[in-house]
């Protein structure tokens, strides 16, 4: 069972699962948003059709080699994140390529994608993309602080940098981390709002200001890659949250339920919120989320 091939197979399967689930979730979020907006909304599988259509575009204009890297880096970053996040907690299936210290590696790799985007967007020469990327990076600085704090708090509290270890602790103790380290959870969830880039933190690609920002010069296959990587990444992030705070999941159904519940937080909050300006969102993240992050660390250190 520990064979590397088996694990790689797990990675491939979890990639497929992540893609499917991520896409469906996004479709569902569109549907739910629509219902809140008093309308029927598209079918839940609409995102698949969109992706297929984008994939079937016959021409793709690009502005240079670097533009290819943007979506590629995004994809790489999403897949790599997914590779090291264990999907299920039974230790057998889909535990993927985790290792000791993967939490720290994850912190790095999750930033990697947007950086790649920055390169790609820079190449397009579209000022909207450039500004969008700048905003994205500054905003990232905002939400990374509470996010890192929350993770650091966990690391301190449980003396481990491995996700699997954290999962095992939850399984063994029977208490989810959401209860044993609530401040870290709050900080992480608030940071997650920024990570998902739904309203109010969607200034990066705000259509009314930047004409979809970094994406503005990417159509067809580029957009297809971005879309799929976004859905994979969304699933990876959701799984990570479930793994860290909700004790992981022992089977797929449980995983789906838990991730969906988590996913609904940014979606529903996004439906009713206008977006923050960049500096406002940074101020937001450095306010209460950071405060909770600090509390979490203090809690971890002193209790």
């Amino acid at each position, binding site marked *: 069972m520990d064979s590397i091939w088996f694990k790689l197979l797990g990675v491939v399967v979890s990639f497929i699962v992540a893609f499917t689930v991520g896409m469906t979730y996004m479709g569902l979020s569109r549907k739910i948003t629509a219902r809140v907006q008093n*309308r*029927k909304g598209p079918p839940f599988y609409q995102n698949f*059709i969109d992706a297929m259509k984008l994939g079937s575009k*016959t021409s793709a*204009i690009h502005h240079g080699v670097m533009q290819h890297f943007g979506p590629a880096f995004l994809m790489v970053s999403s897949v790599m994140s997914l590779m090291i996040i264990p999907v299920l907690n039974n230790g057998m299936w889909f535990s993927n390529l985790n290792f000791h210290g993967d939490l720290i590696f994850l912190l790095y790799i999750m930033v990697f994608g947007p950086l790649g985007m920055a390169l790609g967007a820079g190449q397009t020469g579209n000022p909207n993309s450039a500004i969008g990327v700048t905003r994205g990076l500054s905003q990232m600085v905002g939400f990374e602080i509470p996010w890192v704090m929350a993770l650091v708090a966990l690391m301190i509290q449980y003396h481990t940098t491995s996700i699997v270890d954290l999962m095992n602790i939850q399984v063994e103790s029977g208490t989810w981390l959401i209860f044993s380290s609530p401040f870290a959870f709050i900080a992480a969830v608030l940071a997650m709002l920024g990570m998902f880039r739904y309203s109010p933190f969607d200034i990066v690609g705000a259509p009314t200001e930047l*004409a979809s920002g970094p994406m503005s010069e*990417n159509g067809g296959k580029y957009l297809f890659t971005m879309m799929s990587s976004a859905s994979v990444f969304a699933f990876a992030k959701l799984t990570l949250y479930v793994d860290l705070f909700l004790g992981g999941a022992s089977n797929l159904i449980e995983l789906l339920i838990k991730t969906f519940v988590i996913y609904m937080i940014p979606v529903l909050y996004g439906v009713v919120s206008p977006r923050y300006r960049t500096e406002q969102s940074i101020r937001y993240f450095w306010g209460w989320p950071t405060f909770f992050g600090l509390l979490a660390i203090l809690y971890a250190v002193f209790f």
Partner: protein
Amino acid sequence: MINDKNSQKIVDFIQNWARKHSIWVLAYGTGCGAIEIPPTMTSRYDAERLGVRGAATPRQADVLLITGYLTTKTLKRVIRVYEQMQDPKYVIGFGSCTINGGMYYDSYNTIKVLDKYLPVDVYINGCMPRPEAVLSGFAKLQELIAQGKANGAQKYKDNLDWYRENQKKIIPNWVMPEYNW
């Protein structure tokens, strides 16, 4: 193995099906018809049901809506925008103005016959077309896509010289504006 012809057919069918059900509309209100786009897109008529949604930039869009008259100044931008869009792409002409000039048939600043300058796939009758008409325009486009008949982009490529000639006739300064990235 399935032979190439059949497989091509199947691929075409699937692609056309996807294209048909996912129509991204470029958010470019070129004329007064843009006023009926918000009602079409919002809760009452909700075009998203049919897979129609807005796209912020030409790169991402499939459909260019020419919502009514085009002034020569806008035409220049519209051509630019159209050429930035990626294949397969479609053009829907809204209302009278795109067909034969509409109300502004004797204006010195608006074009009358859109299909001399851009290939148009579907025309919608009205001034302005109501949301129902807009939706049925989309439905017609979907039908044409499914049949593989919505090939305006191909026509444009094949007859580029002819289109260019017509375009240049009314756009004296063919240098695009400075935001020519």
